[in-house]
């Protein structure tokens, strides 16, 4: 590898226009990237990491179990999130943003803020199952989310919703 030396800083702060379309090459692969290996294992450059083991561990296909095995690590067992102001993990319980099923699909597939994407970590089946569970169990949105919904959102490729602590 050739270490890239940093370019010099601009002398004056630039005027910033957000014209560039965010890069979502990873999402384009969503339909096929159903590997069990974690995105964290392919950072592009060598992070400190455990080695070949635990990222290949199998995750359930059942919605509640996916929630317990993956999501509750951050969103907590009661889905109420936590933390302190300025460093919050959003609640999923009673979260109005989940009324629109596309919203959690986008966030789970693409990540947002500190939350990584789970496209490539979980299968589309697992993602559909867990979103169905979270919307139905911790909220009052009983209509199921399907793999077809995920395919539809992936094809439309919408931007990640712009908010820092949605759900609060």
């Amino acid at each position, binding site marked *: 590898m050739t270490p890239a030396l940093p370019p010099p800083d601009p002398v004056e702060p630039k005027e910033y226009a957000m014209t560039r379309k965010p890069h979502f090459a990873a999402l384009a692969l969503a339909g096929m990237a159903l590997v069990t290996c974690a995105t964290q294992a392919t950072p592009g450059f060598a992070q400190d990491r455990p080695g070949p083991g635990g990222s290949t561990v199998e995750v359930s296909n059942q919605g509640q179990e996916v929630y317990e095995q993956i999501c509750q690590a951050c969103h907590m067992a009661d889905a109420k999130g936590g933390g302190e102001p300025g460093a*919050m993990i959003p609640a999923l319980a009673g979260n109005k943003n989940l009324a629109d099923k596309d919203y959690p699909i986008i966030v789970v597939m693409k990540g947002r803020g*500190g939350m990584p994407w789970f496209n490539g970590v979980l299968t589309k089946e697992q993602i559909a199952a867990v979103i169905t569970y979270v919307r139905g169990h911790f909220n009052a949105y009983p209509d199921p989310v399907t793999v077809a919904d995920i395919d539809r959102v992936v094809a439309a490729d919408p931007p990640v919703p712009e908010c820092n602590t949605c759900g609060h």
Partner: protein
Amino acid sequence: MSDVFTPPTRRALLTMIGKAGGAAALYQAMTVLAHAADSQFTGPPRLSGARPGSTVLVLGAGLAGMLAAYELTKAGYKVQILEFQGRAGGRNYTVRGGDTITEIGSKQQVTFAQGNYLNPGPWRIPYHHRTVLHYCKELGVQLEPFLQINHNALIHNRKAFGGKPQPYRELMVDWKGHVSELLGKSLNAGALDTAVTAEDKTRLLEAMREWGVLDKNMQYTKSFKLGEQRGWERVPGGGVNGAPIPNDPFSLTETINSGVWQTLGFFAEHVMQTTMFQPKGGMDHIGKAFQARVAKMIRFNTRVTKIAQDDKGVTAAWTDTKTGATGETHADWMVCTIPAPVLNQIDFQASAQKKAAIRALPYGNSVKIGLEMKRRFWETDHAIYGGISFTDQAISLISYPSAGCFTDGPAVLLGAYPFGAGAYMLAGMTPEKRIQAALDQGSVFHPAEYKAEFLSGASVAWNRMPWILGCCANWTEESRAAHYQNLVAMEGRIVLAGEHCSYYGCWQEGALLSSIDAITRLHQRAMAA
């Protein structure tokens, strides 16, 4: 050139070459000066001559923040640091008996014996992380070898050997032997005649025979010669039964199923190669050594709520998390090392591009679990001294302590260090259930002793640490291309630093290299202003 009689310093020379010839020339020159091959580190920044009275506000007292404060103070700046926690060091962190681990949703009291510890964050320093090693030396941090590779440690895969772990040594030798035999067969069958010259074919066959320890028929079979690599049914001894008895290699299929090639590949990575080091007594001795130099500058328990700047200076508004008092701190310049998942939630006066970069930087998760055992049964009963045993279970690995070999009394094993799904699984458990899972899973390696010798455990789930909400920045090639330069660019009077602002993600080396780069640019801009 105005002063041909004074030999330039190496740094000045490199700067000159860089200006004249660009990055490629600079890199080549650095290589000749024996630096670039292993590290971009060319020595501490040696900044000097700050304008009298100029001030810098550093956000975060982790390694990046404290290096910035240390070096900028030497350069003549007046520095203040605001730190969210009641301790310095950030992810440079060690827990010991008497400590409390506070996660979102739980608290643990650590009861390890005197001298025992867990490094929940960084735990090993490759020999080429020259920035970390430099500052360890400069600040008087004592280092000792970290035992990275142990051929007598184990590899466990649920799909191989009926779930029975096998020594890395045997699997590694068998992998080499089977691959050599297969390559030999391909060569002898003429399958590679269009790919290799006749001369190379001859040498390759000879190499496969020696490297793979094949027999005269190019078969990978049991032999005395092979026993010298993979071990014995009966090891060599003295007297009547001195003659060793070789044992049978594992089958190709079982060897493949073990996944040993992944371990070989892992240890072949530059950042995983030996020699490795660790600070004696715990990784946090590095943070403590920096802290000793900058302690008076740190305001603890201070949560930054707003970051602003204008053409005169920078302002951080904050709340004291102990007293509830609020305040503002002003300075001429700012180094912000707040981790992206938290910075993302702070009112930060920055360009849309900078904010987009921060927002596009999720943090991966990791969990570390320390298990204190009554005695070093891995040494006394299994001749395993340091190193790592790998598993495909959620815990991912266990690692045996590098220090204190042959001592009596309790010792702490690293009982889990996963990324990915395994890390989420363990993090989502209560601390008590994490320990139970670590004991259940780790027992595959040492079933007779693991639970019987257990004393106490402690765990850290990084995504639940309230001051960072994750382990470290999770870049991709795409997000690097779209956002990295926007993240690290100095904007007005503010520059960001930390491992997330480096290509050494998740390493202390990245935090320090990023900080040196950031303060060097800050100083240049301050002197030009």
